[in-house]
Structure formats: structure tokens, C-alpha cells
């Protein structure tokens, strides 16, 4: 089904919840109201053949209201066309219905949007941070997060200074003392040649006599 036909079908079902399509460089974008997004995606997948969710991305429009948007890029393998859906979410109620029930691939994408923007997804089976560590206090892709970052505490590791013990030396240390001779000169086979060279250096006249 072409994107236009799919949008017509969506508008029959959801009416005003679907905005008029916007076209830019051949890509069609529609905005869907927040409470209808999962249902609209389900309809697009089952009835319009959009069997792949190519991408899901959060966007922070800092200074606007609603501040955040979630952008879904759908793809139909049979008709070879894309359709972009957008949902706007305000900062006060930063939650969107999850589409993991429609496409499994949304799982990691939604976790990333949560991690980076703090957008929560209702009905997500495992909404944890994915790129930053568990317990990290910020959402780095928000526009009010500085590029230089904010210092944060790193998570506890299994191994730290208290748990590490030095390996037993068993009569050691068996380490060559450094700084006295060069590596070449420490090499036993080199002793003879070095001695020869030193000999030549200290007695330059000897060479002539030989």
C-alpha cells in the first residue's frame, strides 16, 4: 500500500488524531496524537504492510511546547516505501505507549530513547538504560545537557583496590635491575663483542699495530 493510501486509511479510523502529511525531499511525515500511536502502528503493520520498523528516534525541541518528539520510520518490504510517524510529548508527562508489541525491534530503540532523552514508554518489557550505565543520573542528548558532560559517579566494579591483593612473590623479586646497562649489553652473547669494542676504543693505537 502506498503511503498516501495508508494515511487515508489511518484518517478513516482515527480521524483528527492524524495530522495532514508533510512532504520533504520525497519523504512523508504525519503527526499522530500520543494516545493513538500504538494503535496506528498496529494498523499500519497488519493492514497496510509496513512490516519493518527501520528506526525510532527521540528529538529534543528545547524551548518549545511540547518539548520532545518521538519519530518512527516505518518501511514496507513489499511496496518498498517509507512512512514517518511523529508523536509530540510534553515535558510534564513524558510517557508514550510502547510499540514493542507491534515490532520486537522497538525494544532497544525505545530503551535508547529513554536513556538519551528520558522519554518513558508505557508497556515496555524492560525499560532500562542501554548505552549509559544503570544509575547514571542524566539524559545526555537533551539540549540542556552540556557537550562537555557533567561528572557522575561510576558504578561499583567487582574488582577494586580493597579486593585486589598482590600476587605472592615466592622468594622474588626476579626482576633484572634496570638502568645500569642497556638491553643489548645485558645480553650474554654480546659480552665478547662489547669487550672487543671497548678494547678498541680504549686503545686506538693497538688496532694500527695489529
Amino acid at each position, binding site marked *: 500500500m502506498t503511503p498516501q493510501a495508508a494515511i487515508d486509511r489511518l484518517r478513516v479510523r482515527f480521524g483528527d488524531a492524524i495530522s495532514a502529511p508533510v512532504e520533504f525531499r520525497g519523504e512523508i511525515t504525519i503527526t499522530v496524537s500520543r494516545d493513538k500511536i500504538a494503535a496506528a502502528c498496529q494498523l499500519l503493520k497488519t493492514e497496510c504492510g509496513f512490516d519493518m520498523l527501520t528506526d525510532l*528516534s527521540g528529538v529534543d525541541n528545547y524551548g518549545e511546547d511540547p518539548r520532545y518528539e518521538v519519530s518512527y520510520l516505518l518501511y514496507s518490504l513489499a511496496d518498498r516505501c517509507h512512512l514517518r510517524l511523529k508523536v509530540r510529548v510534553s515535558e510534564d508527562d513524558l510517557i508514550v505507549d510502547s510499540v514493542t508489541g507491534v515490532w520486537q525491534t522497538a525494544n532497544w530503540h525505545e530503551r535508547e530513547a529513554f536513556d538519551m532523552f528520558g522519554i518513558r514508554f508505557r508497556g515496555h518489557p524492560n525499560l532500562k538504560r542501554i548505552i549509559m*550505565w544503570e544509575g547514571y543520573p542524566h539524559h545526555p542528548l537533551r539540549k540542556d545537557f552540556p557537550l562537555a558532560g557533567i561528572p557522575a559517579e561510576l558504578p561499583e566494579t567487582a574488582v577494586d583496590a580493597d579486593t585486589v591483593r598482590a600476587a605472592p612473590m615466592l622468594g622474588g623479586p626476579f626482576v633484572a635491575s634496570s638502568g645500569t646497562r642497556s638491553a643489548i649489553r645485558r645480553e650474554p652473547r654480546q659480552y665478547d663483542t662489547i669487550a672487543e669494542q671497548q678494547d678498541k676504543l680504549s686503545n686506538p693505537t693497538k688496532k694500527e699495530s695489529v
Partner: protein
Amino acid sequence: MATQHEMELIDSAARAQQAMDEGLSGEKMLINMGPQHPSTHGVLRVVLELDGEEVVNVWPDIGYLHRGDEKIAENMTYTQFIPYTDRLDYIAPLANNVTYAYAVEKLLGMDVPPRCKYIRVICAELARISSHLLGIGAFGMDVGAMTIFLYTFREREKIYDMAECISGARFTTSYTRIGGLSRDMPPAFVPMLRAFLKEFPATIDEVDKLLTRNRIFCERARGIGVLPKEIAIDLGVTGPCLRGSGVDWDIRKSHPYSSYEDFEFDVPTGTLGDSYDRYLVRMEEMRQSVRILQQAIDHLPDGPVNSPDAKILLPDKEAVLTKMEELIHHFINVTEGVNAPPGEIYFSAENPKGELGFYIVSRGGGTPHRLKIRAPSFVNLQALPVMAKGHMMSDMVTILASIDFVMGECDR
């Protein structure tokens, strides 16, 4: 004088039967694989739940190579971001450069000259061969065939030499520019590429002879990590992993970019979707890349490589020094960047690992408002639990190698 002792033999079969009857099952064990495990090809951490040797559950843990590329992109001009694309899929930097350049050009609504398109095809296909060589070499080595790795790295060395010849850098190429290339291909490149195309098919045959019907390799790869077609689509898997599962979908065919419609090539697909199919798809894709490269070098158009628009590309140095208008363009280009119209685009290309896409939201001006990288490795890795459940612990190595991911683009 020898004495005879009576010895009671333990009937292990009976004991095992007794254990089964009593409903004894082994204790589950959690094992941590990575982030420094050699078979995770980078810094992927996988937490495995094992029942004996069988994998019951898999939790991939990513993010160890997160560098904040998307945040960085919002704070620099479009041209300044090109070197960062080298470091996404660092096995195939040339292909990333090409995809990124086309994405920004799509946003600007511009076209590049035919010679540029052909050279970009050459870059993308060389990168594909380079990536698949590493993928197959590492796959072979992970399942115990050390030789393959040496053979494929011998060929990759030639590709690095060619990358050096064409871009000046072996690894971090940054070859493309918005609206063209950093330079035309040097005359020495064509004989290099021709020589490579002559020698390389023999290497594919060598690897083919060593691996494809190798008993050990087949036993380790066949039927391991099966990814059924429907689940692959549902998981958004792309590239050789999707084609290995039997879906005939290649962006070079379905949405031709960079004059791919001019070239004759086939898209190989698998039947079962196991690790062996993914290996076969990669082998055949290298042969098809050789075909594309041969056609590209034979029909390479003449003419300029850069778009003439001085508002997008830097003008000639000589003109900058002698003419006022060019000097202004140069200054604006360097300080403010290309003035992109407001709007949002998504451009994706068939990279060696799968569909690499750039989603760019522009508010006008020289920097993106949001640049999202749709990395194939990120999406493909999500299929790991589906592939690995129910297999042996040692098959994890096979499955990871057959996905052929790069953490640089997975974590961004």
C-alpha cells in the same frame, strides 16, 4: 600369590535414569562473556544463563564504546562530522563516508557529478570486500581455522594500500565531502585496482576451498543460530543477516543510490538463516562486489568529481586568493558551514553490516538539530538472544562471528 577382589561396577545409565525420574535438574549458572572476550570482537558484554552447557538465556550489554557521536554532531558543521563517520564502522570507513555524504546531500537537495558517483561506488564496494574479509577471517579463526585469517588479511592489506592511495589515509579515510570528494582519484589508483581485481578472485576461491566444505567448519556453523525470516523482519535485521534468512532485500537494488542502477549484480540469499548461510551470503557478496568494481572501473566517466556549487564545496585555492566572491564563500563555508534548509530526511545505504541510516533534523543553518545514526550492528545484535537460545555455550562464538557486528557503530 594373586588374590582376587570382587568389584562392584556402577551402573551409570541406571543412575542417570534415576536422576531423571526424581526430576533433578542442574543448577543454572550465570556466566559473563566479555567485554574483553576475544570472540566478542570489541567490547560487547554478554551475560549468559547456562544449564550445563546449554544456553538458556542471553542478555547482551552494550555501551562500552559510547563516545556520544550524536551529541558531538549537534555541535559542529556537517563537513566537520565526516571524520567521526570513519569511526562508526571502523572496518569499512569508506562506506560510512559515502553514506553520510549522500545523507547531507539529500538534505541539501543536490546532486553530484557522475564521476563522483562511480568513485563512491568503488569506495563502498572496496569497503564491503574489506569488511567481509575480516568477518569471514574472524569467523574462521573463532571456530578454529587460523589460516583463513592470514589469507584474508593479506588481501585486506591491499585494500588499505588502495585507501591510502585514494584518500591519503589507510584507516581513517574521511574521503568524501558534502557535494563531492576530497580529491579526484589519483592516476596510480586505476592500475592498483585492476591488479587487485585480477588477483582477488583467486583468494576467494582459496578461502572457499578451505572453509565451505570443510567438515569441522560445517559442523560448527550449520544449523547454529537459526534466524527465521519472519523474526528477522520483525527484529529489523538488515544486511547479510537478513539475506541469510532468505529475504531478498538490498538497498542497492530496492532504492538505488550512487548510480547503482547502472551496474549488473546479483543479490545472494540464504535458505535456512543459520550461521552457515550468513557465511555463504558474505562469500557471494564479495564476488558480486568484484563484478561491480570491474564495471565501475571499465565505465568510469570523465569530468569533474565535485559539484560546482561554491556555496557547498570549498572553491579552488587559487580562486580564493585572487577573487573576492570565492574568498567570501570560503570564509562562510569554513566558519558557518553549508546552509541547509529546515526539514528532516532519512537516508540509508547498504553498508557491509546492513542498513546504515542517517536521520537528520535540520532547523536551517550549518549544524544539524538532531542527527540520529541508525547503525546496523545495533539492530542486528538485538537478534542475538533469538539466535543463541538452546545452543551450546561454545556455539555463542559461532553466532557472534556470524552476525559480524562492530561495536564502534553499535555504541556510537
